[in-house]
């Protein structure tokens, strides 16, 4: 089935939102373990078609288990070997879906992604 939403180029200045499960919560922020690939890449939502609240609401489990972080697209592209690709998810009705593609096994990648992440919706107490 042809996607009704074309793949678009994302400007560096835009933001990506990402859900972070509470298992990655720590006293002073987010654990480096939150930054890993699931299937083809690290799933995020493009700020052009989503908000932090909408990103959290898309959780398949109880949404209160999640916080939301944002990362500037240009900063993500500066992390070694990471590619930001708009991948609209028709099946889940998510035009904002974007993958951060690239190996994240190396500790350097997780450290650098964590440094550019900003917590915008904290976990519920």
């Amino acid at each position: 089935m042809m996607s009704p939403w074309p793949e678009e180029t994302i400007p560096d200045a835009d933001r990506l939102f990402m859900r972070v499960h509470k298992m990655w919560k720590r006293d002073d922020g987010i654990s480096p373990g939150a930054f890993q690939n699931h299937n083809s890449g690290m799933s995020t939502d493009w700020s052009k078609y989503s908000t932090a609240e909408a990103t959290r609401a898309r959780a398949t489990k109880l949404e209160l288990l999640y916080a939301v972080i944002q990362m500037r697209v240009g900063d993500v592209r500066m992390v070694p070997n990471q590619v930001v690709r708009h991948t609209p998810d028709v099946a889940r009705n998510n035009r904002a879906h974007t993958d951060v593609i690239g190996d994240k096994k190396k500790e350097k990648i997780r450290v650098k992604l964590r440094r550019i992440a900003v917590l915008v919706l904290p976990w519920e107490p």
Partner: protein
Amino acid sequence: MALSLRRDASEASDDYVVVGPDSVDLTSIVADLANRVKRMESTVAGEVSRSDQQESKLRDIDALVKDATAPYYTKQRSSATHFLDLPRRTRKKKHLSSFEDLPDELQDIRHAIVASRYIFTLSGDDLEEGASPYTESTWKRAVDFLAKNAWWAFVDLGCRIDAPKVLPGPHGSIDLHWDVPAYELLINIPEAADAPAGFYGDDRGKVSIEGTVKQDSVNNGLLFFLTRT
């Protein structure tokens, strides 16, 4: 050939004379003995001198270690000297068998380890969808790695490393994470026991380290990075 000493016949002298058969060249024998005595005296004098120098060096090292403003590399002291300065009960534990044997001086490390026990009890909603549970054996290898390196830094280098956060990592692994103003270091202990641990650290400036180490090893490069500040 038998030689003997006989007191000089002259009462005014305390000298001894060497007496032997007429056919023996006593002069050369005496000269040879005199040379040997001189060499022995020289050797003894040298040993005394070296011992004094070592004592002086140890005192200088001790003063440097106690000087908080001295650069790290000048604080290194011989392991034997530092080890002997440790309290007796600490010296007895030179070969650490468990993180529970860490001394009071390293209680921050011990507390960080104990606080991380929850990791291998995570299940259900406490785990992200698709995440695999954590095993106690992986956690044990991670905390043993931390304890062994912290202990070695303390015993061998006379330094205490900061306590890290011990955290769940990706795919059943355990992260050891130091995030302090002076530096950041992440060490990942994989779920597989025979896989190497990976690490990356930097001072948020020009200095960085990156690589892999064996899970059961003490790594001097990592210890140098952790104790350089």
